[in-house]
Each structure stands twice: as structure tokens, then as C-alpha cells.
């Protein structure tokens, strides 16, 4: 039976298999440590870039109401934009959103339509009701928003984007390589709200009632 003694004065004179294994382990561990550290640093950087993502770019004006409107009207156009500084998220006032729902319900019976179970009805019946919704939504949107396409070109035509184009207004998709000017096909012309005329509310108006219950006497 071997007995192990610790003698710090002793120095190895032969580089044997044990020592080879030990040295290899040290190198491997050191490399591992370095990789982990690098990846942590890189990861943190990337995370920083991702933080502002949920904020849609305020395209026309900084008021919170407008932001909400953007969300609804330009569903297609939520754009992520880098911002290096720490981000303060704006709290959207719910009134404007409620107002818009109320307008759509009043003019177009929007909520009624969405909340109804359509599976029981034929396409013709749904189509008839869709006319109410379509006409009304059109009226509500036309009365309260002025819309213009972002791009004046024909959909399907070739367009080119010069260096420094507004990435909030134009979103690139597909084979994004190389440098600007980019040339591609306009798939969707985009929509922009150029003017907004939401009704004003009296003090104390309960905007969360988007349609009052009706009782006929």
C-alpha cells in the first residue's frame, strides 16, 4: 500500500504522462474560461441593442396618442430602430385607443363584428355585415385621419433606396446584402398618417365605455 507524503521541496525531474495530462487540462480550462468571458461580453452588447426593440418609432409626432394610432393603422410597419442610450418607455394614455375603438364601434359596429362567432353563418351573410363594417370603418378613418402612402411608386415596380434612407419608413426584406443604394421591388407602398383629428373629450368622460348599453322605453 502506497503512502502519500507532501514534500514541497521535491521537484519533478521527469515529464511523465501525468504531467502531460495535467498541462493539457490547464490549457483546456484556460481556453474555456476565455471563450466564456468573450461570449458573455458579446452577449451583453447584443442585449443592449435589443432593449429598445418594443418601442415603435414615433413617425409623426411625439404625443403618446399618436403612437397608439400608429400601432393600429400601420400594423405592417412596426419598425425596430437602434438607440444607444438607456431607453425610457413612454406610457400610452389609454384614452386615445379607447376613443378609436369607440369610433369604430359607433360608425362600423367593429367590436360587434369581431366578437361575433362567424362560424355559424354563411359567407354571404358575413359579407352583408362586412359591408356595414367596411363602410363605417372607411367613414371613421377618413373623418379622423389623413392617410398617404409612404412610397409614391407603383406596387410591383423597381425602386432604389439611397444611402441614408429612412429605415423607419422603408423596411428591407429578403436578400439584404451589400451597401446602399439598395434596389428592389416595392411590395407594399406603406401608409403614413399625415393628419390626425381625434375628438376631444370632456373632463370626466368615461372613455372605457366604448358603446353604451341601449334601453328603449
Amino acid at each position, binding site marked *: 500500500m502506497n503512502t502519500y507524503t507532501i514534500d514541497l521541496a521535491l521537484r519533478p525531474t521527469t515529464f511523465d504522462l501525468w504531467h502531460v495530462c495535467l498541462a493539457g487540462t490547464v490549457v483546456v480550462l484556460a481556453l474555456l474560461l476565455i471563450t466564456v468571458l468573450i461570449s458573455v461580453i458579446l452577449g451583453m452588447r447584443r442585449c443592449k441593442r435589443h432593449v429598445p426593440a418594443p418601442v415603435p418609432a414615433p413617425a409623426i409626432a411625439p404625443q403618446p396618442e399618436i403612437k397608439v394610432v400608429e400601432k393600429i393603422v400601420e400594423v405592417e410597419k412596426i419598425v425596430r430602430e437602434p438607440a444607444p442610450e438607456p431607453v425610457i418607455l413612454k406610457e400610452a394614455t389609454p384614452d386615445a385607443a379607447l*376613443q378609436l375603438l369607440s369610433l369604430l364601434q*359607433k360608425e362600423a*359596429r367593429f367590436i*360587434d*363584428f369581431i*366578437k*361575433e362567432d*362567424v362560424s355559424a*353563418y354563411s359567407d354571404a*351573410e*358575413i359579407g*352583408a*355585415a362586412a*359591408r*356595414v*363594417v367596411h*363602410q363605417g370603418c372607411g367613414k371613421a378613418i377618413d373623418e379622423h385621419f389623413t392617410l398617404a402612402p409612404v412610397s409614391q411608386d407603383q406596387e410591383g415596380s423597381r425602386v432604389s433606396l439611397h444611402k441614408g434612407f429612412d429605415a423607419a419608413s422603408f423596411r428591407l426584406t429578403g436578400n439584404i446584402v451589400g451597401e446602399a443604394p439598395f434596389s428592389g421591388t416595392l411590395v407594399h407602398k406603406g401608409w403614413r398618417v399625415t393628419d390626425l*383629428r381625434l*375628438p*376631444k*373629450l*370632456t*373632463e*370626466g*368622460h*368615461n372613455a372605457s365605455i366604448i358603446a353604451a348599453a*341601449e334601453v328603449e322605453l
Partner: protein
Amino acid sequence: MSEAARYSVGIDLGTTHCVISYVDLRHDGDEVALAVLAIPQLTAPGTIEEKSQLPSFTYLPHAAEIVEGETALPWVAKPEHLVGEIARNLGGKTPIRLVASAKSWLCHAGVDCKQAILPADAPEEVGRISPFAASMAYLRHLRDAWNHRFPEDRLEQQDVTLTVPASFDPAARELTVEAARAVGLHQAVLLEEPQAALYSWIENSEGDWRNHVRVGDVILVVDVGGGTTDLSLIAVTEQEGNLQLTRVAVGDHILLGGDNMDLALAYTVKAKMEQESGKRLESWQLQALTHACREAKEKLFNQPELGSMPIVVASRGSSLIGGTLRTELSRDELNRVLVEGFLPQVPVSERPVSKPRGGLRAAGLPYAQDAGITRHLAAFLAKQKEAVSELGHAALAENAGFLHPTAVLFNGGVLKAAGLSERLMGVLNGWLRAEQAPEARLLSGADLDLAVARGAAYYGFVRKGKGVRIKGGTAAAYYVGVESAMPAVPGLAPEIEALCIAPFGMEEGSEQALPNDEFGLIIGEPVRFRFFASKTRREDQVGTRLESWNDDELEELDEIEITLPEEGMHPGDIVPVHLTAAVTEVGTLELKAVSNRDDKRWKIEFDVRAGNE
């Protein structure tokens, strides 16, 4: 006209909509920069929007109906009346509390417009208001909207022009001015709507109008508004080398307009829907149907390639798909109901049908019985055959059956539809061709919806001496009825003579006295005169006595009344007076009794309607 005025403001106080337009008088240069005021108004409880039109509706809410504070406007926490879009919206579902067409009541014979009579079919407990109060409410809202927008230049200090239908009688004009004064607009003057439309056309042409009309032209202005149709004739003459415009005739007050058209369509579609679905439509559905029909009508008229438009009425409950009724409005139906119904192709000899009304007709407005606008037009042109004979215009051919207009100006949103305006031109030109007269041309370039308000604002400009002014004066000659000196015959009403007190075409600011005919008035007792107007007798002078006349020559208006106050005289004394008539600068007719003893004057009131019933 105040010198301090910054703006000239035109107010179109329409039967269904009010519009306010203004022009900056300090703006230099020839160009007239006209703008239309966006009017903040409640659209639903608690919701305020700015719209260019204020619907002329008043809603009288129940105390429990609206939450406290939900009716606030930017300038007042709790307005006295609910007017505008909210009134129309709420009234759509509760018609018993809705006041509509107050303006038409102002010109309704036999009604005291200062009595709380509207809504006419409201139950007892609804606190009614008078047509006069409703007009005041609209004016007050417009005034406050203006003052909110221009706190530095209050409306009370601006030059204000109010438009009235050309067919408004003296009493209705007086009431309009009174309503304006009651809300502090003491300086407001009146302008006839067809004239305003022509001013707007002149303004719009930017000085080019002289190239579109020539001496000898007779311009027919056809104004089909929401609730009324107004006809006027304006002659182009020459004075010292300058073109001049003179309004030579106005038509009767015809209660027939775009709303009737939408309603007619709605009833047609309603019948069809009921037949198809087997269900009876309720009154609120008719309302939705009217809206849908209006939209379908506009689409069909604007897009000639469409054959029909689907009409959908949504259910009232939250189940949208289950309860929706659907049908179609075809182009044929549209043509049959609107074009053939309202603008029938008739010979010029046809006249509007008027059946005697049923004895038990509910109290209401005297809506036109014949919907054929072309028949009303034929009657007007035939009646005014002699309208331009004094102006040195080319005389009509001897066999001419009606006055031949050479140009036509349209006004009113209804005539935006090409189908309707072309039909109207076609019918008129057909009549002209039949009498070998040249066809009339259409003066284009007018904004049919806002022209009246814009023209009224431009009129303030014209009153400053810039630009051409339409000469007009009174559009009728006025008469009082006096009993003729004949021995009384038992069983026969005493014969009555019509004594002319104001001739046709009296200009603003002029006065005509009737010194030779003396009346004895009893102090303290009201004295009434029968009052007549004639839109065709142009040659009668003050003092002319008519012993007999045709029914269509003289039209009886409401009686006029005078009460001499005691003022130091004994009740029962008789004062000899003569009558004078004046047209004020504002544009209203003013009748006065002048004492032959000491020249004391007493005003004769027009608005004594229905007081004797």
C-alpha cells in the same frame, strides 16, 4: 358696418346645416382669401369634434339622459340647448325630443314663431322651445365658436352677413334679424341665398366672370338645399359701360329638397326589403336606411359604371351578422325615384299639383305636395314672364310661354350629382328649344356646398365698395287690405281693396310714405290689417288701389298688427295716421304708422301669427 371690423363673416343659417365663412378685410391685394370656420361641437355625450358644418338641430334631453358634465363645450360648461351633430345623433333614436327645420317654421304662416311649439309632436312633459329660440341657439353656438377661435376679434365687432332664402317673407326676415340681435349680433345684415351663391361664383372666377356673362343675360339661380328649393332670376344689364346685376324675381317658398330625395329612396328600398325578408322595418331602421341610401345615391351618381349598390341595414343588438338585412339599390330604381320623381320631363305648361289638404292634417310644416321640381320651375318661369321687360332686354317673342333664361347657376349639394343637374338642364333646354330660343348655358365652377356662406362673406367685401354688387331691393310689392267704402250688404263680407304701401324693388335704406290715405287708429286697441304681397306686379306705386286681382297675383301673408300705446292720450281716442314703408339697411321691411298730427311714429309688427285663433 363698423370700421374696426377685421373680418367679413358670412353665416349660412341653413334648414339642415349652418356654415360660417370669413374673409380677412385687412388682407391686401385683389385676391380674396376666404376660409371656412371649423365649428367645435358635441358629436356624442362627452365628445367634441370640429366640423365645417353645424347641423341645424336642437335636442331637448331628459334630465336623466346625460351624465352631468358630458355636455361641456370649450366655452361653456353646460350649454342651454344641445345643438349640432349630437342633437342629430341623439334625435335619430328619440325623435320626440328633436327640433328640426326650425328655419322653415319661421316662414310658416299661421304660427307664432316665438311660442314654444317645437318639437311639434312631443309629449306634454318635454319642455318645448320656439322656432325663434332654436334659431337663436344655432347663432349663439356659432358666435361662441367664433369667439373661441378669435378671442381678439369677437364676432360682435365683425361685419356679419346672414343669409335667408329669397322666398322668406318680411316677417321671417325680421325674425332672423331679431334672433341675431338677441345674441349680440346687432350689426348683422341679410342677404338672399341665391344672391350669395352668385357672389360666390363671381368671387370664385377671380375677376373672369365678366367674360362669362353679357348684357341681356338672364341668370336663373336654382338652389336645391337640404330642405328647401329656392329660385331666383338675376338680369345682367349695363350702366356707364359697366356690367350690372339686378335680381329681378324670386320664387315661392318650396319646402322640397335633398332630404326628401333621400327619404323617397329609403321608402322605396324599405318596401323592397320588407317584401324580400318578410319582416316589417321599424322606424329606427328607416333612419339607417336613409343614411345607407344617401351613400348609395352618391356612389351611383359619381360612378356611372356601377349598375347597383348594395344597401345594408345592421341590426340594433350586438349580433351584427345575424340581424343584418341586405338588398340592392339599382340604377333603374335611382333614376325612377329621383330623376323621374323629382325632375320629371314635363312640358313647360305643366303646373305643380296641389290637392286640398285633408281636414285632419296634423300640425306641421306645409311641405310641397308636388315633388316635381321641374313643375315648380315651369310655374315660376311662366309667372315671371314679364320680369325683365323693364330692363331693356330683348323682348320675348309674342308667343313665348315663359321667361327664357340664358344662363343657369346651380347651388346646393343635391345638384352635385351629375345625373340630376344634367336632367334639370336638359328639361330647361327642351322648353327653350320648343320656343325656338337659344339654349341656356351652365355657369360652372361653384362650390355647391359652401357657396352660400362664402358668398355671404364676400358680400361684406362688396359692401365696402370692392367688386360688383347685385341690385335687388324688395322682391315683392306689399299691400294692406282696406275695406272699400260700400254700403254693407247683409250676408256678404265687405269688399276689400288692396292698397299698395311698398312697391316692387325698393332699395335698402329707402322709404316711401303714403300720405293721402288716412286711417283712424284707436289708442290702446290693437288694430289689424290684412297683408298681401305680389311677386309679379312691378308697376304698382305707393297708393295704388287694387279692387280686384287674380289669385296668383297677390298672396296673402299673415296679418300685421299695430297697437298705439297710451302715452299721455286717452284710451279710446282716435288718432289719424298714414302708413310708411321703409327697407332698412339690414334688409328688412319696416312698416310704420305716422301720426298726421305730430309726426309721431309707431312700428307695425309682422309677427302676430296665429294670435287670432
